[in-house]
């Protein structure tokens, strides 16, 4: 149980290949922190530096108050679940889970107790004698979790542990992991490229792109107040609508509609962003509206997605499924002003 601090951390493989750039995050004790970003952005590298599997080029990583830059992986008291699970193929499930405890020179009876306890939590009691080869993907994943939780580590690292599971099992395991986090009361750092996992599991989310940390915050905060264009586009499905606008006396003017900005901004051009659900078929008298030419309608039962254009801009809207609309129609929709974002077209930073 410990906090983790990344202090100006840099990872450079060669002089012109920097994969993690000036990375600063403080992860509180017992927090569930999710590190999310597109493939190849350096998430795993950031995690592996903390585990001691990669050297740190610049900066400091601290676990609690202890600087671990030069501490060997085996002495960091960290548990890690690998994407491939990395189970020892020649050992039984029991021995796989007992291995880290044997490394701590724990007594046989204590090892037995802890492994049994973990296997009970994870529902592995009937598989303890089996080799990993004779297990299903989901069972292997749980053994990998078991090997990590038996140790009561200071920090728990998970690198895309669900990506080899089918959709249903992934959903279940997501919930189980959150429960596990509550029960273990340990710091969790969870790497994923799946924003749904990030949104549902994290106390806080850190979003990375191309080696640079974009924003850290609670899921709701990031969803409602994305700090820049990348975060706004990365979080949320379907993605946020982005429309280039010009500013004219307090209004943002797009090719097909106008929006009154809630407060003045010091720029005359920008990119207006609003999520599909900011559009509604219930039009308020004083609100902004826009008319879209509907091209595709998707009914999902609980939702209805409209894909179309307003002026020259493509728009996605998420409206009440009871709204009657067909491809080819023109639909007038209300735009909820609480849900609009404006980004600088050069720096891509949020302006509102």
């Amino acid at each position: 149980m410990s906090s983790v601090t990344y202090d100006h951390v840099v990872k450079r493989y060669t002089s012109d290949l920097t994969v993690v750039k000036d990375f600063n995050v403080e992860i509180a004790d017992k927090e569930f922190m999710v590190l999310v970003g597109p493939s190849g952005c350096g998430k795993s590298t950031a995690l592996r530096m903390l585990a001691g599997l990669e050297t740190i080029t610049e900066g400091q990583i601290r676990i609690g108050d202890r600087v671990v830059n030069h501490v060997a992986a085996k002495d960091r008291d960290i548990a890690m679940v690998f994407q491939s699970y990395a189970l020892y193929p020649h050992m039984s499930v029991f021995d796989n889970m007992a291995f880290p405890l044997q490394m701590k020179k724990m007594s046989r009876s204590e090892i037995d107790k802890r492994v049994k306890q973990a296997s009970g939590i994870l529902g592995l009691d009937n598989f303890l004698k089996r080799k990993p080869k004779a297990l299903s993907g989901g069972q292997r994943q749980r053994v990998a979790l078991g090997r990590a939780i038996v140790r009561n580590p200071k920090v728990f690292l998970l690198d895309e542990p669900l990506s080899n599971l089918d959709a249903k099992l992934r959903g279940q395991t997501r919930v189980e992991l959150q429960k596990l986090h509550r029960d273990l009361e340990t710091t969790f750092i969870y790497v994923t490229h799946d924003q749904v996992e990030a949104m549902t599991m994290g106390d806080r989310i850190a979003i990375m792109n191309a080696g640079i940390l974009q924003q850290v915050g609670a899921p709701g905060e990031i969803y409602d107040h994305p700090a820049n264009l990348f975060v706004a586009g990365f979080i949320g499905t379907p993605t946020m609508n982005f429309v280039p606008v010009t500013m004219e006396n307090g209004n943002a003017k797009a090719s097909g509609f106008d929006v009154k900005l809630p407060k003045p901004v010091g720029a005359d051009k920008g990119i207006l962003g609003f999520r599909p659900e900011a559009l509604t078929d219930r039009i308020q008298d004083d609100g902004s509206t826009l008319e879209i030419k509907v091209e595709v309608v998707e009914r999902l039962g609980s939702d209805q997605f409209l894909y179309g254009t307003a002026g020259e801009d493509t728009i996605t809207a998420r409206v009440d499924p009871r709204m009657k609309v067909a491809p080819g129609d023109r639909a007038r929709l209300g735009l909820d002003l609480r849900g609009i974002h404006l980004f600088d077209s050069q720096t891509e930073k949020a302006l509102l």
Partner: protein
Amino acid sequence: MDLSLLLTDVPTLVVVIVGVPAVLGAYILGGEFLVRRLPDRARGSVRPWIWVAPALFFVTAFLVAPAIGTVFTSFQSHGGDWIGLTNYQRQLVDFPNGGAWIAIRNNLYWLVLYTLFVLFFGLLLAVLFDRVPYESVVKSLIFMPMAISAVALGVIWKFMFWYQPADAPQTGTLNAIVVNVFHQAPKTWLTDPNVNNFALIAAAIWGITGFSMVILSAALKGIPADLLEAARVDGAGEITIFRRVIFPLMMPTVVVVGTTLVIFALKAFDIVYVMTAGNFGTDVLANRMYKLLYQADNPGGASAVAIILLLAVIPVLIFNLRQFRAVEARR
């Protein structure tokens, strides 16, 4: 080589160059032609035999038949009379110094020392070179002796072990070191029965270590890196990782290499033949068989030794094949 010799017998040359491919081609085409006329069901089970048959023929003609012939010879006198187990008896009398006993003892030395040291060095080098830059260059160097014929290897080491009387300049590398660095009297490495077996075995080990290193190194590289990383995070030091993760995963390969080496050790001949000709108490079974056959003109005795050797190799061979299949099955 004098190529004009080939031209003196042109018909034979033509038969070899034209005839052999023609016969093979005719066999394949003819076989396929006949198979096509078979009913559908039989075709699948007949076709493999068509392809295997030539190999079966050659193995039978040149391996199985002579082996059976050897069994018969081992029960016969020089004149061809049946004399039961007499030939075997003669090889196994007067333990520990009579008959084939010295050769059997030496083969056991070879079996144990050669196998263990080659495995040990191979494993050590594979693990160490896994962590050095220029790995492939260093490994090629170690592998180089494999490219030398065993006879040349024997000659090289004969010079390495060369003995000169104490007052003469030492031209043998080993004795030069013994005399000039350690200031001891030169040793008769190849004639002193206390060391000569080990000298021969050492030369053989030098020759084969590259083989074991290369195969074990491939097995080492086959272990996924994240297993080792997982073990590191789990708190294991490098030696523990080797003992608990790397070695067990390499075990099947170690066994295959080990049993192959056991067979090599039992078959040891060339190095002994070149370096001591089996004298001074360094005889091994294969060399004894050769001597009995060509020097003592005793085909019955030679056959008996051959059969003893064969009986010793067969169990190892079967074990080896099984293990090999187990390794393949793991992939």
